[in-house]
C-alpha cells in the first residue's frame, strides 16, 4: 500500500468509526438523576465483614461514586451511585489487625460479578439445564410458602431440609430457628475442607468443640502437622499476623517453625525445617515426641490431664512410640524425631497444630487427639505462646431464642442416602444456602442423583454453580456489601468478637437478604412460625444491645455499627457453653470413650494397581473452589507454581523420570472412581509416592471465568470417612499416573525459572 492510499483508508475508516459512535444509541451517554445526594470524588470509609471464609475478618470499605448502567422507561443511560471501591482490613479488628488475604481482597468482585444472579428465577428447562425465567419476588415467595404449607398440611414438616456451610452467628441462628420452629431437622452442613473432626477432638481433649486460637506472637517454637495456617486453614490472616511477630516482632528472639507434611504447602515453604511424613501417620510422630518429652521429664504424664488420658499407653509414657518405632511407621528418621523433641523441650513456650491433609484420613481423630495431648503435655493450653479458645458470644442467649439446643444435623452422606432411599422421611423441599456439594463431594455419595430426586429445590445463592443449577427456584441474596453482614469468629482472636456492618452500598440488583426472606416466609405461612425478629437488622440490634458498651452510659449497638463490631470481655451470661469458667484441662473425660491408639490408615485402591497417594489441597487462590469465579483470583499466580487460569498435577521429579514424564507433559490421573487429564508440574517439594492437585478448578457450571477450566480432583475421591465423626477422608485415595502426551499449552505460568540461577521474571514476550 502506498502512503496516499493508506491515508485515504484511515481517514475513511476513522470517520466511519466516529459516525458509528454518534448513531449508536449504546454509545450515547444519558445521565439520569441519582436517587441519593452524591458528592463526586469524595471517598467515605465504612465497616464491612469479609464473607469468603469463616474467619470473620473485619473490613474497611472505601465507598465512592460510580456510574452504573441502567435502563429507565426504555432509555439506556447511566446513573451515579455510591459503590464500594476497595476493601482493606480493619486496623483495630482483633482477628486480622488491618491485614486482608488475597481472597478477601478479591471478594469485592463478588458484588460486581457480571454473572451474578440479578433477580428471582424459576426453572424453565430440565433439571440441571440451567434454564430459568425471571419471576417477581412476590410470586417467588408465594410459591415457596405454598410448598412449605403443603408439607404442613400433610403433617410432613420433617421433609424440609437445608444444606449449608458450617458457619456460626446470627444468620445461622435464624436458619436454625426457622427449621426448628417449622419442625424440620437441623441443617446439613458440608464443606470438603470442613473442620468438624478437629472440633470433635477438641471437645474430647479440652471440652471445647471449637477450633483453636494460636498465640504465635509469643511462641518460641511452632510445630505444624499439615496445617496450612498461613494460607487457607482456620484463621489465616490472624495466624499470619502472629507469625510475622513470632519471626521478627521481638528483639533478639526469633521463634522457630517446623512443618510436617508430605507435600510442601505455601505454609510449609516458610518453615525452618520441612519434615515429610507418610500419609496418615502424623499422630504417631506427635506421640513419639510426647514419649521423648516425658522421658526427658519435660512434662509428667498426668500434666496432660484429660487430653493425655484419651491416649492409650499415655500414663506409662507411651512405650510403644520409641524413635525407632516412629521411624518405621512415619518414615521420619529416629535422629530427626529426637532432634525435634529436643528443640521442643528447649524452646518454650511452644505449640503444635494439626489441620488439613493430616486430619483427612480414616484415623484422623487419633492424629488430632495425639497432637492435643502433646500440647497439653507442653503446658501450651490457655497459656501465652500456646493455644486457647476464643470465648464465644452466645448469640442465641442474647437473642433470647427459646427452644432446645439444636441436634447435630445429618451428614451430607446421610442426606443423599436418605433421598435416594425414598420413603416418607425423604426431603420434599430442599433449601441450599451456599454449599456446593455436587462439585466437591465424592461421586460415590451420588449427591447429584440425590438432588435430582428432590421434588423441589430452592437456592439462595448469587451464582449458578453445579448445585444451585439443579434448583427449581432461585432467591438471590444480596452481596455482603449490600446487606447487613455479621460473623461471630470461632477462632483467631484472644478476646470475644462479634463482627457486624451495615450495608455499605445500595443493592445493585433485584436481590433480597436471605435472612429477611426466611423471616418473611415464616410470617406468611398458614401457621406462622412467630420468629420474634422483624429483620436481620432488628435481630442484630437486640443481640448487640446486650453487650457491655465501651463507655459508661454508651450504647454497644451504635458503637458496633460505627467500628464494625464489638470485642472485649464477655459477661458470663453471654458466653456460649461449654463455659470458659473451668480450665479446659480440668473438665471430666467423656464417658464411654475408649483410649485412642494408632490404627493403620485405610486407603482406597489396591497399592499394586494404584501406587500413588492423591492429595487434593486447598488452593491459596480458590480455597475449595468457591472463589474460582473471581477473575482476579484466576489471574493471580499461584504462590508455588506461578500458574494462572490452570490446573496441574504436582509430581516428584524422581517419580516423573521413572514414568517418563517431563515438566509440562499431559498426564492421566486415575483412581478407582474416575480419571482426569492434567498437566504435570515437577516439584521437589513432594514425596515420591504422592501426587497433589489444587482444588478449585474443573467447574462444569460456575460463571464465565471458571466454567470448563481445568480439572477437579474431587472427581477422583473415594468415599472413605473417619469412623467416629463421619468426616470425609479426602487424602485417602490412591491413584496411578501415566504420561498422556506432550504439553498442549493449557498450563499458563507467569514466571519461568524454578531456582535463583535460572531466574527470569514474567514471560519474556511482553517486552
Amino acid at each position: 500500500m502506498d502512503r496516499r492510499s493508506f491515508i485515504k483508508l484511515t481517514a475513511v475508516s476513522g470517520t466511519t468509526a466516529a459516525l458509528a459512535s454518534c448513531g449508536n444509541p449504546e454509545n450515547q451517554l444519558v445521565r439520569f438523576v441519582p436517587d441519593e445526594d452524591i458528592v463526586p470524588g469524595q471517598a467515605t470509609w465504612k465497616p464491612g465483614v469479609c464473607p469468603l471464609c469463616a474467619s470473620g475478618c473485619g473490613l474497611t470499605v472505601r465507598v465512592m461514586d460510580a456510574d452504573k448502567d441502567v435502563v429507565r422507561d426504555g432509555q439506556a443511560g447511566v446513573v451515579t451511585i455510591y459503590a464500594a471501591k476497595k476493601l482493606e482490613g480493619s486496623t483495630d479488628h482483633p482477628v486480622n489487625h488491618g491485614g486482608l488475604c488475597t481472597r478477601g481482597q478479591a471478594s469485592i468482585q463478588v458484588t460486581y460479578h457480571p454473572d451474578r444472579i440479578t433477580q428471582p428465577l424459576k426453572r424453565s428447562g430440565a433439571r440441571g439445564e440451567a434454564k430459568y425465567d425471571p419471576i417477581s419476588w412476590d410470586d417467588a415467595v408465594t410459591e415457596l410458602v405454598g410448598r412449605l404449607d403443603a408439607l404442613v398440611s400433610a403433617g410432613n414438616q420433617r421433609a424440609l431440609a437445608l444444606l449449608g456451610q458450617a458457619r456460626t452467628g446470627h444468620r445461622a441462628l435464624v436458619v436454625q430457628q426457622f427449621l426448628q420452629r417449622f419442625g424440620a431437622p437441623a441443617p446439613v452442613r458440608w464443606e470438603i475442607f470442613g473442620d468438624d473432626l478437629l472440633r470433635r477432638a477438641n471437645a474430647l481433649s479440652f471440652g471445647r468443640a471449637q477450633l483453636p486460637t494460636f498465640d504465635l506472637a509469643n511462641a518460641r517454637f511452632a510445630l505444624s502437622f499439615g496445617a496450612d495456617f498461613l494460607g487457607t486453614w482456620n484463621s489465616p490472616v490472624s495466624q499470619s499476623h502472629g507469625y510475622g511477630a513470632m519471626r521478627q516482632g521481638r528483639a533478639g528472639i526469633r521463634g522457630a517453625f517446623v512443618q510436617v507434611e508430605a507435600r510442601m504447602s505455601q505454609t510449609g515453604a516458610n518453615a525452618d525445617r520441612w519434615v515429610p511424613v507418610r500419609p496418615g501417620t502424623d499422630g504417631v510422630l506427635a506421640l513419639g515426641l510426647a514419649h521423648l518429652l516425658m522421658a526427658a521429664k519435660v512434662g509428667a504424664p498426668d500434666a496432660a490431664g484429660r487430653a493425655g488420658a484419651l491416649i492409650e499407653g499415655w500414663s506409662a509414657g507411651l512405650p510403644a512410640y520409641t524413635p525407632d518405632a516412629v521411624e518405621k511407621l512415619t518414615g521420619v528418621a529416629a535422629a530427626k524425631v529426637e532432634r525435634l523433641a529436643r528443640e521442643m523441650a528447649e524452646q518454650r513456650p511452644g505449640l503444635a497444630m494439626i489441620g488439613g491433609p493430616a486430619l483427612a484420613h480414616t484415623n484422623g481423630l487419633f492424629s488430632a487427639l495425639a497432637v492435643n495431648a502433646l500440647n497439653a503435655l507442653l503446658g501450651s493450653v490457655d497459656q501465652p505462646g500456646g493455644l486457647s479458645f476464643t470465648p464465644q458470644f452466645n448469640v442465641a442467649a442474647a437473642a433470647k431464642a427459646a427452644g432446645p439446643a439444636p441436634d447435630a444435623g445429618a451428614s451430607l452422606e446421610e442426606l443423599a442416602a436418605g433421598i435416594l432411599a425414598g420413603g416418607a422421611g425423604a426431603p420434599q423441599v430442599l433449601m441450599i444456602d451456599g454449599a456446593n456439594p455436587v462439585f466437591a463431594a465424592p461421586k460415590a455419595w451420588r449427591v447429584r442423583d440425590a438432588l435430582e430426586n428432590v421434588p423441589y429445590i430452592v437456592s439462595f445463592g448469587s451464582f449458578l454453580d453445579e448445585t444451585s443449577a439443579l434448583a427449581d427456584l432461585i432467591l438471590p441474596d444480596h452481596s455482603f456489601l449490600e446487606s447487613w453482614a455479621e460473623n461471630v469468629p470461632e477462632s483467631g482472636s484472644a478476646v470475644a468478637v462479634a463482627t457486624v456492618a451495615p450495608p455499605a452500598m445500595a443493592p445493585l440488583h433485584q436481590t433480597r437478604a436471605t435472612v429477611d426472606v426466611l423471616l418473611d416466609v415464616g410470617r406468611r405461612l398458614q401457621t406462622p412460625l412467630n420468629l420474634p425478629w422483624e429483620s436481620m437488622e432488628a435481630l442484630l440490634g437486640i443481640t448487640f444491645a446486650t453487650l457491655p458498651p465501651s463507655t459508661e452510659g454508651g450504647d454497644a449497638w451504635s458503637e458496633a455499627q460505627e467500628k464494625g463490631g464489638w470485642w472485649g470481655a464477655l459477661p458470663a451470661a453471654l458466653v456460649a457453653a461449654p463455659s470458659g469458667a473451668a480450665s479446659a484441662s480440668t473438665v471430666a473425660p467423656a464417658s464411654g470413650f475408649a483410649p485412642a491408639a494408632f490404627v493403620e490408615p485405610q486407603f482406597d485402591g489396591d497399592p499394586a494397581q494404584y501406587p500413588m497417594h492423591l492429595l487434593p489441597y486447598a488452593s491459596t487462590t480458590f480455597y475449595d473452589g468457591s472463589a474460582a469465579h473471581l477473575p482476579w483470583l484466576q489471574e493471580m499466580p499461584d504462590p508455588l507454581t506461578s500458574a494462572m487460569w490452570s490446573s496441574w498435577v504436582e509430581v516428584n521429579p524422581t517419580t516423573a523420570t521413572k514414568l517418563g514424564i517431563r515438566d509440562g507433559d499431559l498426564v492421566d490421573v486415575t483412581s478407582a472412581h474416575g480419571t482426569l487429564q492434567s498437566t504435570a508440574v515437577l516439584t521437589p517439594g513432594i514425596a515420591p509416592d504422592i501426587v497433589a492437585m489444587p482444588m478449585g478448578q474443573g467447574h462444569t457450571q460456575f460463571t464465565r471465568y471458571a466454567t470448563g477450566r481445568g480439572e477437579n480432583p474431587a472427581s477422583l475421591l473415594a468415599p472413605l470417612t473417619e469412623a467416629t465423626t463421619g468426616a470425609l477422608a479426602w487424602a485417602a485415595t490412591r491413584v496411578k499416573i501415566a504420561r498422556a502426551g506432550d504439553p498442549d499449552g493449557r498450563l499458563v505460568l507467569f514466571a519461568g525459572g524454578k531456582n535463583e540461577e535460572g531466574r527470569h521474571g514474567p514471560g519474556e514476550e511482553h517486552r
Partner: protein
Amino acid sequence: MPRWGMAADLDRCTGCGACVTACHAENNISTVGPYQAMRGRAKHWIRVERYWEGEFPDVRLKFRPVMCQQCGNAPCEPVCPTYASQHTEDGLNAQVYNRCIGTRYCANACPYTVRFFDFFNPEWDKPLHLQLNPDVSLREVGVMEKCTFCVQRIKAATIQAKADETELKDGDIKPACVQSCPAQALVFGDLNDPESAVSRLSESPRGSKLLEDLGTHPAVTYLSRQTQV
C-alpha cells in the same frame, strides 16, 4: 523533600499473595484472560517470586515479593525518547502515560522485569467496572505501566496534610500492598527521614538490594530470611 522507599522483610513474608490482588484492586490493573496470559501478557505490578533449593526431602523454598524498585539510578529512564519514564523529585520512577509512545525501551532496560506493556485496551465485563478506582488513570493500548508506589495515595496524603496544615507522620501513607500484608512484611516510608521505620529497617544487617551490583540504587531493601539451626 522525601525519598520514598520500601523494606520487605523476607522473614515475615509468607508468600500468600495478598499484595498481588490488593495491587490489582487499587491500581485498576486489568486481567487479560488465559490466552493472553499464556502469551506472557498478564500484568502484575507486584509478584511473589519463589525459588526452590535442594532436592527431596531436604527442600527449601524462598519467597520474594518483587515490584518496581524505584531505582535512584534507573535504567528505564534514560532510554525513553519522550520522557515518559522520568524521575520525580521525591525519588519515584514515574511513568507518564500520556507521553508514552510504546517503544518498550524501558522494559528492555529494566533488569527487574517489572514493567508491563498494554497490548490492548483494558476491558472489564460490566458491572466489574464499577469497582475501578477513580484516583488511578486507565492505561490504553500501546502504553507501558508499572508499580507507582501507589503515587495516588502519596499525593492524596500530602495534599491533605497541607490542607490540614499538619506534618505527614511516618506510617500515614501505605501503598495497597503494604496495607493488605497480613504478616506486616512490607514497610513504606521516607528514606530521608532517619527516624522512619523504613529507614531503620534499611539499615538492618539483614538488608540487601536486588541486583545492586548493577548500580541501580533501588529504593527497596530486602531483609533476608533467617535460618535456624
